[in-house]
């Protein structure tokens, strides 16, 4: 039960609250470039989600068994229980990503030719999509360093297992797809608008993205309430005594 609630929280947080594109700004390049048509954007989103999952699986395995301080395989090979290869993290991740793109490409070409045809154009671009490296880095933070390591009260300090890593990756990919598809829909309509000349292209896209990000900010705080809702074992003492709207105001000027 605890695992399920952890996974739900990770998924909601990665896909909506802290959306990869609109909160962390990763994957902006395809967001600005590719998102002109809804079907293309959806294809790109699916390809990214697919690659992100493969890369997350591989990088979780590498981090857990080879790279993190005290990883079993490294300790066994070197005979030093505190062996630490984390300095190689970034190099390993970027090669894991490059090879998973290759792997996905070959696999699709062999077994799912129609899918390959629709993804094909996007696949090589994905290697330099920050969203994938970002997902690997988030996983690293929670597996290797153990964000909030040594913390009490079990509030997200626990180390991530494979399930959590995969959920983060898939939810992150879904969040990317949501953002890029919404953007493509808006841009299809923007074609019929009279945009001032200097703002045409990237300028207006960024302004629209700003408004989208503002809308997505409305989801903030959902996770802490969701956590209370799914883990009702002991209601924490710190609840507001005054009922009413507890949301933080939108700080726009």
């Amino acid at each position, binding site marked *: 039960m605890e695992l399920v609630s952890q996974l739900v929280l990770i998924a909601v947080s990665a896909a909506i609250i802290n959306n990869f594109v*609109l*909160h*962390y*700004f*990763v*994957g*902006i*390049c395809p967001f*600005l470039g590719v998102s002109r048509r809804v079907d293309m954007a959806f294809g790109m989103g699916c390809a990214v989600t697919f690659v992100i999952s493969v890369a997350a699986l591989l990088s979780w395995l590498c981090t857990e068994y080879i790279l993190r301080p005290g990883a079993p395989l490294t300790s066994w090979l070197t005979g030093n229980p505190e062996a630490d290869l984390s*300095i*190689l*993290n*970034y*190099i390993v991740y*970027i*090669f894991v990503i*490059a090879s998973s793109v290759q792997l996905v490409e070959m696999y699709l070409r062999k077994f799912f030719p129609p899918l390959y045809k629709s993804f094909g154009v996007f696949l090589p671009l994905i*290697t*330099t*999509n*920050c969203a994938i*490296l*970002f997902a690997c*880095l*988030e996983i690293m*933070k929670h597996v290797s360093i153990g964000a909030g390591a040594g913390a009490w009260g079990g509030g997200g300090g626990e180390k991530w297992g494979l399930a959590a890593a995969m959920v983060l990756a898939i939810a992150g990919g879904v969040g990317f797809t949501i953002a890029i598809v919404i953007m493509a829909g808006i841009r299809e309509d923007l074609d019929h608008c009279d945009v*001032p*000349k*200097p*703002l045409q292209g*990237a*300028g*207006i*896209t*960024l*302004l629209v*993205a*700003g*408004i989208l*990000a*503002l809308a997505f*900010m409305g989801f903030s705080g959902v996770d802490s309430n969701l956590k209370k809702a799914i883990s009702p074992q002991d209601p924490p003492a710190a609840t507001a005594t005054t009922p009413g709207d507890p949301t933080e105001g*939108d*700080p*726009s*000027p």
Partner: protein
Amino acid sequence: MANDGPAPLERFLNGILPENPVYRQLLGMCPTLAVTGNMKAAMTMSAAVMFVMICANLITSSIRHLLKPHLRILVFVLTIATFVTIADRVLAAYLYQMSKELGPYIPLIIVNCIIICRCEVCASRQGLGAAAFDAVGQSIGFALALASIATVREILGAGTWFGITLLSESWWPVWGIMVLPPGAFITLGFLLGGVNWLSMPRGKKSAGCGVR
């Protein structure tokens, strides 16, 4: 292979405005939006990018005759990832708070298209001098772009610049939104529009007004 590209000085100047990585090439958008909430973070990021870009350009340029065409991207990525790791560790050792604040955006320099693009376009074709000038020019262009966005966001969003209070809180209601993600998108959108407007051919514009 002879030096057939633009001269070193031209490369340097190109990076600052005519081929500015952010405003003209729209590359490296991720750090441009993510770390420009305040000047200190933006300048630390620019310094890290400058270090990585200079080292990567110099190494690529010095081994350019040995590169096999189909292995060149692999070599670029290996070089960049190594120097990013070094920059990341140095920051964690000497500027710990800043390295915590920048978090994943330092390792994300690896997939920053600016650096791979410069290795490919300039350093793998031209000599050490041109490559070095190119890297410095491009990274100064990048730093100026980051500085322009960070200036707007920090002054409006926190009333400070480099941590120095400019707009007193007694009469300036800080626009908190400017240091949040939406502020980043909107600021960059307007600045991009502004740069495009400034560099539009003047004659054409007055002709457009004259039609009425």
